[in-house]
């Protein structure tokens, strides 16, 4: 393969690229503002271009052709075979991530002589990790809902077409999305949000692990329960894990722990309201 030439999006500045690499070095050191910059940089990098001879492909196309297409279906199929996601999914994700990086190198997309190719590798690894974490979380939630006898209809995660559905599941006739934390934050950058509720996860320092949470529109919440206290985005964490209302992009949302949402849903379904 001829030495690829990488052209980064012209709207990205040096400090934004540095913050993207800082995410890989130690995301724990990112400030909230740097997190926002990292998220927008990983979005913007999709427009980067790789030129190999006469061929010109975007970072997004490299990801689709050389990462998503060869690895995604097989990764999901292997995840679905795991009896205990908590015990083995992390190892599977790490093994596949190493394979992705090696494949990029072997295809010539990540090499010493190609200035800027580290950002293509970073772009692919970032989105692959988001994908892998996202579907590990989604399968955990779907398994838990089934085990809790919650009635729901879920999209088919085994195929790319199924995964690209506009929502992941329907519960109580409400459309929901299950999104890993950073994926949810990417979604929050885009306008408008289209689902009635989102299941995401936040790290609980007290128990030292991620716990699922639900963020739902005010209208969706009204079906489940009544009034809740209101907070600004700056103070909402002070109220959590109690249900709390906040406003984002001129829309009101309620944040509450997943177990509490599940209990409310179960109560409604026992009264005869179906999905």
């Amino acid at each position, binding site marked *: 393969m001829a030495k690829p030439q990488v052209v980064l999006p012209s709207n990205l500045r040096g400090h934004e690229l540095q913050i993207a690499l800082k995410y890989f070095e130690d995301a724990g050191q990112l400030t*909230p503002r740097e*997190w*926002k910059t990292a998220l927008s940089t990983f979005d913007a990098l999709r427009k980067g271009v790789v030129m190999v001879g006469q061929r010109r492909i975007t970072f997004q196309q490299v990801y689709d052709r050389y990462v998503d297409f060869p690895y995604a279906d097989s990764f999901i199929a292997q995840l679905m075979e795991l009896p205990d996601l908590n015990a083995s999914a992390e190892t599977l994700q790490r093994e596949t991530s190493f394979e992705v990086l090696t494949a990029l190198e072997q295809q010539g997309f990540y090499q010493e002589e190609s200035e800027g*190719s580290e950002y293509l590798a970073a772009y692919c690894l970032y989105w692959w990790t988001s994908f892998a*974490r996202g579907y590990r979380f989604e399968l955990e939630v779907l398994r838990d809902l089934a085990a809790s006898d919650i009635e729901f209809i879920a999209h088919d995660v085994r195929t790319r077409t199924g995964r690209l559905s506009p929502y992941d599941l329907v519960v109580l006739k409400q459309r929901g999305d299950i999104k890993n934390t950073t994926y949810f*934050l990417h979604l929050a950058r885009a306008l408008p949000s289209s689902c009635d509720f989102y299941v995401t996860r936040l790290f609980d320092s007290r128990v030292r692990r991620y716990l699922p949470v639900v963020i739902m529109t005010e209208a969706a919440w009204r079906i489940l329960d009544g009034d809740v206290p209101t907070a600004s985005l*700056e103070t909402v964490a002070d109220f959590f894990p109690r249900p709390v209302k906040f406003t984002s992009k001129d829309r009101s949302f309620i944040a509450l722990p997943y177990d509490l949402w599940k209990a409310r849903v179960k109560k409604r379904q026992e009264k005869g309201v179906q999905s």
Partner: protein
Amino acid sequence: MNKARMDKMFHDFIQRDEEQITPDLFFQILAEIEREHVEKTVELRAKVIGGKLRFEPSPEVFVHENEILWGNQRIVVQVS
């Protein structure tokens, strides 16, 4: 590019536990995203002449009489 350094960075990342986004950090990031959308405020000045709005020229955005061209949109402001 120092590839050896990049390789180490990517390998460490793959083997490291997921970053810890607490509720406090999560909502702070959401607040930053919220601010992003209002970071740039464009102020336009206008006068009403003969019952019609007339924008003054602006270096930030193209205006013509009572029209604003914003991206691929033409915004026409009428005085009621």
